């Protein structure tokens, strides 16, 4: 039989070019902020430091460059199906930083209200090690969980005899310079991280805001998905 795949959830990933230099700028801004606001905020983070969500206000040019990249990618992979060739939406961006020491993790959560969510790794903390016992993977949960496993938890779909069984989670091991994007509703977590060095990551949300046609025509530089016929 043929296997047709319906209703996939996209995970977009890329390496940001020239990220070594970008990361030095981001790291400096984040360290300075942590020194000024050592408590940060407590949301999904366990143990780690989580900045406020105003990083675009306090991290300057490196943060804006990173957000430009995220917006470019969001524009490529978003379509307004009813705009009839005119722009109707603008992105409202939000950014924050996370620093995770040994033992830190993030509980399973989603970014309700956001259309795209992104995470960027300034420093993966692994110091070049490929040892999986260092943990710290981003875990993405199948949005169909637990329905797909209710009838018989051990029986799973496989596309062929030699294909792997379908899994209800995907683990992604971070790497410095890597950018990941996914729908804001998709639930994700960070497994406990056991590296010796601090892990530094940046999280971003793009919320879509409906704006009158005339506003986006008057101010074409406002970020948002391009018109499609």
């Amino acid at each position, binding site marked *: *039989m*043929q*296997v*047709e*795949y*319906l*209703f*996939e*959830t*996209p*995970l*977009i*990933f*890329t*390496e*940001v*070019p020239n990220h070594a230099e970008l990361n030095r700028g981001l790291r400096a801004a984040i360290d300075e902020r942590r020194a000024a606001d050592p408590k940060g905020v407590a949301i999904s983070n366990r143990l780690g430091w989580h900045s406020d969500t105003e990083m675009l206000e306090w991290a300057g040019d490196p943060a804006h460059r990173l957000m*430009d*990249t995220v917006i*470019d*990618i969001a524009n*490529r*992979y*978003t*379509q*307004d*199906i009813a*705009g009839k060739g005119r722009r*109707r*939406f603008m992105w409202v961006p939000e950014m924050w930083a996370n620093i995770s020491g040994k033992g830190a993790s993030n509980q399973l959560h989603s970014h309700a209200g956001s*259309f795209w969510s992104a995470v960027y790794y300034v420093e993966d903390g692994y110091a070049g090690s490929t040892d999986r016992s260092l943990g710290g993977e981003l875990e*993405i949960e*199948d*949005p*169909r969980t637990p*329905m*797909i496993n*209710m*009838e*018989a938890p*051990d*029986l*799973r*779909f*496989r*596309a*062929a*005899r030699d294909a792997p*069984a*379908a899994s*209800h989670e*995907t683990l992604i091991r971070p790497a410095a310079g890597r*950018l990941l*994007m996914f*729908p*804001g*509703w998709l639930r994700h977590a960070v497994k406990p991280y056991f590296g010796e060095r601090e892990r530094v990551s940046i999280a971003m949300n793009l919320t*879509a805001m409906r704006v009158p046609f005339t506003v986006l025509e008057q101010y074409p530089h406002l970020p948002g*998905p391009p018109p*499609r016929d």
Partner: protein
Amino acid sequence: MTSAAAQPRIAPLFATAVLTGSWPGSGQWNSVLFDRIMEHRAKHPGVSLSNVHGWQSETDMLEWGGEAAQALCDHVLAQCDEYSVDVREQDRRRFVWLPEMWANVNERGASNQTHCHPGAQWAAVYYVVDGYKGSDDTELGGEISFLDPRFPMLRMREPDLRYRRPDDSYDDHEAWIRPKTGQLLMFPAWMLHGVRPYHGDGVRISIAINISSRPRWEE
């Protein structure tokens, strides 16, 4: 573009698989199945479940469908084996399949409301005759329609904003398949599906099978 040098890649995660194919036994058995189902319909009022207008038999077709129904069932169970894996034990068979089969006869105007098959692992549908009489006119309707299991969550914030794929198609929360005589479809039993109103002149006959799994000790 800041990211000019970075060509993003996409991992399409957590897709729901629909198996499509044809039953190799269709040439041998379709006319037998047609006669047997029409004969059974003449004597039985049928049931009213997701069917709107059409006739639907009780789920006991394996008792009255004869050798042809058994051959279809055997083929479907072989596909269940092919496309399922016990992730805990591969050397010993821990599960048995429990099939349940019924027939549907749809004439002009018939449809099936959106429904799913709780308690089953796989759902299968086989088309004894599509009723289109060779026409490819989509006005005849009768497509099977699958609903995205993430719906309506993924449309709650901005229904018109969609994920645009690398091939420039975009995310839709329904997928339709136009049936063909001899075609077999299989999909997870939890997936919501329905049949769009059918407007053909010919009789449409399909056979549905629910396949549940049970631990082998119940055998």
